[in-house]
């Protein structure tokens, strides 16, 4: 049926006017916040349900539950994302019990749960644990061998991801675990041109306890009177007393240049009003430490404090969905002595816009791992990221008989059974 041209014309002209009109009304209401349009479009509010199917391997409890039972602190430290991801996937609508229709396969291994008395995770057994888990799934199910792990994903939230070491030089030496070479890694570490960040990895924020942060909210009309806020170490006296090694000297530089500056509220104290103070600050420093990522970014986003990221070449969480350039301020490590000039020369309109973007609730939701899961939170953003990688490329499924992974590669210590 031929549509008369005038009908088409009406559609083309009048419908956009409608949409624009509605859009204009919405603009008035949303003057407090701004929509976040990332590089992939407005993807923060996408719903992954229906776009992908995930199959969760049933591993013996020595890989997950027993480890958690040994130390309950794993649920509250900043690497707890791996545990909560497992729990979320078990009860999520994207889970499928039929592996034939699954797009992605998840292996629940809690590799960051071997804690010292101080609460820091030791990564020395993690490569062996991961290797043993992969041997198990490759021998009990055919799906690993079918693609050598290219449609599998693993959550490795430790300092340097799947390099499984806390020291950067050692981590670089080890490189990513050879068996994980083709899998998708969901990790907190992200630095461009670094051995431990593989292409196609999904960067996630570190775990921050949502209830604790909600409990410390103050009324939003409390005036922001602190210009720059930071609490943390500048010199890691235990491991690097002279400075220069820790944080590549950036934190020490911040201290030396700005310790007597009234605009910079920086110290090493642990105040009980840390969250409240962040809500009274305009800028919050997020410098690198031993690793470039830190939970301060998450805290800054939740409390509406503009993050000042001092870490060269860092890859921030969900970088393809969140336009971090428009939300935070990036300062090169060599420009740290001029930090006050840089921050005061930002025009006020830009600062207000950044605060509006930060006030957007979908931004805050995307950084959190709430229990139970809510729409738009970090779990859904991970699934969105996985869904964006579908359909799988041509090299995913191997031809029969083809082998790419070298099962004996890596340091000798890794090959011992776990």
């Amino acid at each position, binding site marked *: 049926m031929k549509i008369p041209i005038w009908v088409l014309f009406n559609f083309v002209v009048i419908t956009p006017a409608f949409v624009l009109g509605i859009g204009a009304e919405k603009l008035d209401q949303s003057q407090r916040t701004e929509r976040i349009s990332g590089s992939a479009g407005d993807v923060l509010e996408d719903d992954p349900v229906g776009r992908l199917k995930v199959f969760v391997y049933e591993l013996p409890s020595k890989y997950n539950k027993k480890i958690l039972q040994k130390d309950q602190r794993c649920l509250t430290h900043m690497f707890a994302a791996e545990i909560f991801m497992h729990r979320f996937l078990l009860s999520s609508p994207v889970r499928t019990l039929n592996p034939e229709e699954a797009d992605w396969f998840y292996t629940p291994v809690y590799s960051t749960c071997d804690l010292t008395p101080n609460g820091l995770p030791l990564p020395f057994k993690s490569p062996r644990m991961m290797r043993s888990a992969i041997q198990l799934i490759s021998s009990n199910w055919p799906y690993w061998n079918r693609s050598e792990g290219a449609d599998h994903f693993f959550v490795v939230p430790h300092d340097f991801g799947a390099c499984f070491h806390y020291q*950067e030089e050692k981590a670089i030496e080890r490189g990513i675990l050879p068996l994980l070479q083709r899998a998708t890694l969901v990790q907190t570490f992200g630095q461009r041109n670094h051995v431990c960040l593989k292409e196609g990895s999904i960067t996630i924020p570190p775990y921050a306890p949502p209830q604790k942060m909600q409990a410390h909210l103050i009324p939003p009309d409390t005036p922001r009177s602190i210009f720059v806020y930071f609490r943390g170490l500048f010199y890691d006296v235990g*491991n690097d007393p002279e400075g220069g090694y820790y944080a590549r000297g950036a934190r020490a*530089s911040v201290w030396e240049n700005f310790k007597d500056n009234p605009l910079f509220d920086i110290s090493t104290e642990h105040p009980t009003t840390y969250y409240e103070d962040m809500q009274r600050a305009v800028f919050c420093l997020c410098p690198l430490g031993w690793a470039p990522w830190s939970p301060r970014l998450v805290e800054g986003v939740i409390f509406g404090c503009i993050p000042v990221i001092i870490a060269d070449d860092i890859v921030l969480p969900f970088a393809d969905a969140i336009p971090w350039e428009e939300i935070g301020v990036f300062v090169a490590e060599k420009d740290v*002595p001029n930090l006050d*000039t840089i921050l005061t020369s930002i025009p006020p309109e830009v600062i207000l816009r950044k605060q509006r973007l930060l006030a957007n609730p979908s931004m805050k939701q995307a950084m959190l791992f709430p229990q139970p899961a809510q729409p738009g939170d970090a779990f859904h953003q991970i699934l969105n990221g996985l869904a964006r990688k579908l359909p799988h490329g041509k090299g995913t499924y191997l031809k029969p008989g083809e082998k790419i992974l070298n099962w004996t*590669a890596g340091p*000798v210590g890794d090959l011992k059974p776990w």
Partner: protein
Amino acid sequence: MKLSQQQNCNTRRNNSFRTTGPLDSSVDSAFKPLASFFWVVLHGLCCLISLVLGFRFSRLIFFLLFSTNTTSTTNHYTVPALLRTTSDATQTLTLQTPPVLITDTPSNRTNPATTSSRVVVGRHGILIRPWPHPNPIEVMKAHRIIERVQREQRLQYGVKNPRPLIIVTPTYIRTFQTLHLTGLMHSLMLVPYDLTWIVVEAGGTTKETAALLEKSGLRTIHIGFEERMPITWEARHRMETRMRLRALRVVREQRLDGIVMFADDGNTHSMELFDEIQSVKWIGALSVGILAHSGNSDESSSLLQKQEDEENLPLPVQGPACNSSGQLVGWHTFNSLPYVEKSATYIDDRAIVLPRKLEWAGFVLNSKLVWKDIEDKPEWVKDLDKLVADEEDLDSPLSLLEDTSVVEPLGNCGRKILLWWLRVEARADSKFPPGLVFFFSNSFSVVYILLPCYLYFFVLYILLPLSDTGYDQRYYMFFLFPWHFLVVISFYLHLMSDDLPECIHMAYS
């Protein structure tokens, strides 16, 4: 060497926060004793040289020696090791790792192009700018940014459509007037809303009060009230009520629009108070903290302390009382029974000053309540003119209402105390001048006093030594010393004489 260094680093790091040693350090073996001896000797030599030179010499040597070993395929991003100016050369005795440039990692990667990190692992210098102190221009810019952010916050989360405020203050000239009025003035200057300040002065308007009000820059209406302030507290409270009604008459005549607030000059107001009263519809009531102080320091206060500790009174509060659903059910008033014998009668008594049962300061009104003819005036308010004409004793704005249940409790139903009531007055015979005038501010005095001073010093220290005449002691005694004496005496006389009219004025006011 690098391995041993790294092992040193490992153990150092491990000792501090991780207890188990690394498993993959199986590569290191016991190095030869000769090599270790050689390194110890070299290290000691470097330390000695550093002591002499004053900076860390070994770092430079290692950098120079080992930087030639790197392969050319790496991308360089070396931060030059800036020499720290603080003297720390003598402390550390450990071998430092030179900035290690990343070489090709033993890669079993599929892509042949080496994607090595641009960012270097290893020890970097700590960059300190030449003048690491705050720059005042930056500080000013930052304050402007903060101001803009706070303004935006107020626009977003603060009161929408703020109404102008009308502040009514009764005052009279006395020793502590400047003290109280300056405090109130600064509070009002900080209020972010439009403001009209009606100041009613007993005894007629005076120049001192007018000068003080002018410094505020606020819109003020200065009214004189013909009678003088009496000397008893009872009579003073009654007179203040009449002064407030006089101010309300001005509001009525000029049809000033806004929210009327009664700010006495002795009270202290918090800034949240002005945000809270914007939410009043017709008449609202606030909680007022009563700071009833005792004038006598030693015995009466200790008695009071004991009494207060027994009855566990934290701070007496006057204001609305609500039930659990937030409705007004009654009033908290000041319990003056414990203090009745010791209360002050005269204004300058050194005893406790008691408030009335309900202070005017705890109430705010919509100015339309006192206007003459408006359409939607509520029925429960009495006409102001009739009240004044009847000469009833209005001890609180509740007398303006037929029905007191329409009062809106503010400040989270009276749970938040936003202002404090206090009456402090000086002794009757005090001679506190209304303003401190530093004598240099008067330009006349500059000419009168300073010029001879300068002439004197010029003669004594410049002309005389330059001249050829050798001056001796007698010359000095005869001419210069009397002149010096005269100058000093006239200086003090001038100081005293400046105050003389004021002192006379105060004593007989």
